[in-house]
């Protein structure tokens, strides 16, 4: 009986909670995007649906559901419908590994519940591999639309994402050297033990990670695939209605994934600002403290995403590649070497 509860019921409830919370955050993110854009641009943003436009995501969701689902003539029907799902699912299953809090959460009726769904010892590897499955969804979507602009958009985003996976991977190695383990929970505990967030030990690594993260999710200065001005709307030009909203959700979900990873790897996951200094224990006093700290940090990152998008112009396609290969990759490698040498000297 205990087995059933501990290994089937509780994980199922956790998964249910996490899935709904992420879906809710994604919905709120669409509103946040429009609100932040509006404030930056001396506007008010959506104000009509609900007080201060709070219910706008509901309205958008409903609208997209009711919108006509156009499938272009000559499009490959099956792949056309499957592509958005392929890009959405990986973005959600990554959350299984993200540690929202420490292992010893709280106990209910004798059962110990941790703050995360599971703790894979190869957590980082899992996240990297799953998030690169999303690219296939985009390529299939662009190709199956059987029209020129989406094809160009899909090819571009494929090349962009593939070429940014490499520096992304390298920028994480620095953290792995310090933490000594691939499991996300252990990385955060290593930061707790070290008493420092890894962002202070790995500043270059963090900047590279976040830059590649932005490029991975086709956002801000790297959002060439859906460059409105050139390719009309990039790979999801032909999509409309519910399928379009799937792509939309996928983009926002992967944004949250990158923010969570950045927080976990570099900003000390659920740790409060000075984890070991007991004078600051009051920071952890309130219930669910780790969860709140984690959420606060993720919000900061998501705000940074939106902030970048509405401030900077867009890179051109070849510049984007040049930045990726000639700037980020060498810097990432150098960062790894420097970290390795330092660790060897200090620890050796």
């Amino acid at each position, binding site marked *: 009986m205990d087995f059933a509860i501990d290994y089937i019921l509780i994980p199922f409830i956790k998964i249910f909670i996490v899935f709904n919370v992420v879906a809710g955050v994604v919905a709120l993110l669409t509103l946040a995007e429009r609100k*932040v854009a509006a404030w930056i641009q001396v506007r008010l943003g959506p104000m009509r649906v609900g007080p201060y436009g709070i219910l706008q995501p509901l309205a958008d969701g409903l609208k997209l559901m009711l919108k006509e689902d156009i499938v272009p003539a000559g499009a490959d029907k099956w792949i056309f419908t499957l592509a958005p799902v392929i890009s959405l699912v990986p973005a959600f299953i990554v959350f299984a590994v993200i540690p929202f809090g420490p292992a010893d959460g709280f106990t209910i009726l004798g059962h110990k519940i941790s703050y995360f769904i599971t703790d894979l010892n190869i957590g980082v590897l899992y996240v990297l591999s799953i998030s690169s499955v999303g690219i296939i969804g985009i390529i299939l979507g662009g190709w199956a639309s059987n029209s020129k602009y989406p094809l160009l958009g899909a090819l571009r985003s494929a090349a962009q994402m593939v070429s940014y996976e490499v520096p992304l991977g390298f920028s994480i190695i620095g953290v792995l050297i310090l933490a000594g383990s691939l499991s996300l929970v252990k990385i955060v505990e290593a930061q707790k033990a070290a008493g420092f967030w890894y962002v202070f030990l790995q500043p270059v690594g963090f900047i590279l990670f976040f830059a590649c993260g932005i490029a991975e999710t086709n956002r801000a200065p790297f959002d060439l695939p859906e460059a409105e001005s050139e390719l009309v709307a990039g790979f999801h030009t032909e999509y409309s209605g519910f399928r379009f909203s799937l792509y939309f959700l996928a983009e926002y979900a992967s944004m949250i994934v990158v923010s969570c990873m950045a927080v976990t790897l570099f900003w000390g996951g659920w740790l409060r600002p000075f984890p070991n200094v007991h004078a600051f224990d009051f920071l952890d006093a309130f219930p669910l403290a780790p969860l709140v700290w984690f959420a606060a940090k993720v919000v900061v990152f998501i705000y940074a995403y939106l902030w970048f998008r509405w*401030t900077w112009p867009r890179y051109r396609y070849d510049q984007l590649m040049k930045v990726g290969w000639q700037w980020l990759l060498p810097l990432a490698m150098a960062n790894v070497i420097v970290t390795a040498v330092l660790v060897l000297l200090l620890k050796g």
Partner: protein
Amino acid sequence: MKVRRPNLSLLKKIFLVDLIRGLFLTFSYQRPSLNYTEQYPKVRPKVAERFRGAPRLNNDPETGETLCIACNLCALACPEHCIEVGWERDAKGKKALTSYTFDISRCMFCGLCEDACPTPALELTQDFEMSLYDRRDMKWDRQKLEEGNQPVVYTK
């Protein structure tokens, strides 16, 4: 005078100074309390006093007849030939206005008719809500020109 062509110094490039300065500027703008959106149908917009909007035929305030002396100068001045003035000689042999049609579907509100009118009869008012459902209603007759346009009041 030659225009500046600044180059980023290496230091600025490394510490992303140019990108960050842009960020600070956009961050400094986020004061929603200062932003204001005019809720148009509920709040009437403040239109300039000289706004060239819907035409109107003015009446003499005391006697109440029209000020228009049917001289047809406005019809001649209009580049789009929107105005037709109907008149006939009255008892004293003076021209009297009978009908006056103004086709606002073709009018571009340039104000030439207003300039050409010798009397303060024809005037472009501040009313800009002239949308209609039927193109035929766009040919305003004299009665509509004198009363002016009654827009449907928007009630939520």
